[in-house]
């Protein structure tokens, strides 16, 4: 008659082991997700397209663009974010072109997203309708940003420098890109989407563009990264996000101008994902390959 007792205790033991295991895993996740006190800027290696992740001290995340729809952005995010972290506070789309928003559809399906930011300009392709549909399905609000808006987080501020109303209506979709300056006390980084000479010159006239880190506009197109614009920024680090492409990105012309401006140029097709880690104005650059 002792058999049932034995069996019950064995089951209790199994249940105990399972709970202990689960508990251990949860504490493990909590322990590894203790967030860094640095500001981390990632330029993700996602092929031909743009995708940047900003991790603020304390673990608040802003993802700017998701690259083309090739699954790479999810791979990169799963390497950077702690296991079990499925929340992105903010996701921003610079402008509605597939090599910038395609990967965001996958991101929105997988991650819980606090708020979706963009310029408000709608895309013209059927794929863009899929983005809108998944925003609705996942119940994520879309907030349209324009020149003059500022996002504050602790000691950090993200100022939106472009587009203004006129440029938002531009026929050239690249000119509608959201341009954002991330600033803390002794450090600045400029995110430029796919803007070309026209918007660059407008910005150079209206703003103090000095920045330590520049996201090279339009993957290093020869119609971007103009001399005046670069003189205004004086970047120390410039990151071009490129993959295999038929446009010749990054072009010799743009790379030459960036070097003339004194910037150390990194490109994601050679350097892999590039990380700039900022600690009280000082920063270090890491790359995932070489």
């Amino acid at each position, binding site marked *: 008659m002792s058999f049932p007792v034995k069996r019950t205790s064995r089951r209790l033991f199994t249940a105990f082991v399972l709970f202990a295991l689960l508990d251990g895993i*949860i504490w493990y996740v909590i322990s590894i997700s203790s967030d860094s006190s640095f500001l981390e800027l990632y330029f993700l290696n996602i092929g031909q397209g743009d995708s940047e992740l900003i991790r603020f001290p304390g673990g608040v995340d802003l993802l700017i663009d998701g690259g083309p729809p090739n*699954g790479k952005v*999810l*791979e990169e995010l799963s390497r950077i974010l702690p296991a079990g972290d*499925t929340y992105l506070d903010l996701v921003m789309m610079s402008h509605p072109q597939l090599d910038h928003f395609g990967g965001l559809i996958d991101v929105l*399906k997988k991650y819980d997203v606090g708020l979706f930011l963009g310029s408000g300009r709608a895309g013209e392709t059927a794929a863009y309708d899929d983005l809108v549909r998944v925003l609705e399905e996942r119940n994520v609000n879309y907030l349209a940003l324009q020149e003059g808006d500022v996002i504050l987080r602790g000691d950090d501020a993200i100022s939106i420098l472009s587009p203004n109303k006129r440029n938002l209506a531009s026929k050239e979709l690249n000119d509608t890109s959201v341009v954002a300056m991330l600033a803390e006390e002794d450090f600045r980084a400029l995110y430029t989407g796919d803007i070309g000479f026209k918007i660059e010159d407008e910005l150079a006239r209206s703003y103090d563009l000095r920045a330590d880190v520049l996201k090279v506009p339009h993957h290093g197109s020869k119609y971007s990264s103009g001399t005046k614009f670069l003189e205004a920024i004086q970047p120390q680090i410039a990151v071009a996000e490129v993959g295999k492409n038929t446009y010749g990105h990054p072009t010799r012309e743009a790379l030459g101008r960036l070097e003339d401006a004194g910037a150390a140029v990194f490109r994601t097709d050679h350097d892999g994902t590039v990380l700039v880690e900022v600690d009280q104005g000082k920063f270090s650059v890491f790359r995932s390959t070489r």
Partner: protein
Amino acid sequence: MPLYDKAFWFISFFLVGVLFASSTSFSDTVFIAGLVAIAIGAAFFVFGKKWLALLSIGIFLGSGYYVFYDVRTRDIAIPFDEKTTVTGLITKVSTGLEKQSLVIKLNDPLRGRIRVTAPRYPEWNYGDVVTVEGTIRRPDESFAERLAKDGIFGTTIFADIKLVRSGEGSLLKSKLLSIKHFTESAFRRALPPEKAAFLSGLTLGETAEFTKEFRDKLSVTGTSHLVALSGYNVNVIAESIMAALGLWFSRRKAFWFGTTAVALFVVMTGAEASVVRAAIMAFLVLLAEETARAYSFRNAIVVAAVAMVLVNPRILRWDIGFQLSFAAVLGLIYLRPAIITWFNVSKKPGFFHWRENLITTTSAQLAVLPILLANFGSFSPISIVPNVLILAFVPITMFLGFSIAALAVISSYLALAVGLVANLFLSYELGVINFFSMLNLKWEIGSFGIALSILYYAILISGILYINRRTAKTNVISG
């Protein structure tokens, strides 16, 4: 000759006939098959096997059936090699990382199915009616037969696709597919992409999201079969459920639970033809273990096979999944006991069932070897090692996978917690695959034809017969 023997031989000859007709390209296949049948029949007659001589007419009938089916399905009306706009119903979608592959059944007055390669977005669904503007080409010879197996006779890329209306097609099928999609998205949310894709492969046989590098790794390590939905995977699910329930219920009840699990699995994967076939094979293995009567089992296999072949005779020659399931099942039923007898293997399963897995893997691998060689052109001599290391953990991984899907219905956070546990097992399995793929031990084989396959199986079958005869003799002497 008893009736069940007559049935067995007749069906076997019929299958040989189908295989003959699908492997040859004579203009008058049926006539030649008739001559072959007469020659074989005459040979049996000379050796006094009158019944076999009569039944060999099955070869003639089998090839006749294949030719009839072939002619009927090739009756298509597709405008090839010109810029055209066609309308049709999407009957299948497989979504990869960068693109989607759609199977479209053309509307009247056109007839036939085409495969359309489309960008990853916008997403298309089963049951969408679309217009496709582009140029339809005949598929390249190298994969024309494989596409023909699914009734596809044309392909197009970079076409302009527009939605006409959605929600057509079978309601049941779209409900089943939504279950599958739910499972896949639960995996994606709970796990890193590579692991989610591997788990989808293990549990659903869905490999569209694999990267090329990962496919190569699986091929180098001889573990591709883990994600090729075959009777083996389905069997693993059923066996582990039966083993778990065996603690509480009688063997017979556990058997029915196992069978129910197989049925649910079919539902979960969207009940595609390949899954149904795998499930039938898995059910047969369960049945064999339950009844332990080799003769009735032998008939069950050929009846199941012929039923599937009657539905689509092309699978015998062109569906790798069917061939792998079929050969692996035969290996488990006939080769496994022979190996156990020959090497006098202990009945104990061993630490983490290593001994059981080793024998099972070896039997299945030996049985499917020519199929792998003929289709993939390579073979890994060390594949047994990663297979044994991984197989021990496949049932628990699959179980955790289904738990993730089931819990995701209630809460994605619960699914995430189980995902963390599954993550550990998947890390181990992918670690094994990565490690052995770095060793890069692979025998490349240029071409492995049907003659070599026949020779290989002849040797294998003779070996089994020899061992069985010797065992029978030993039993008589010791008895």
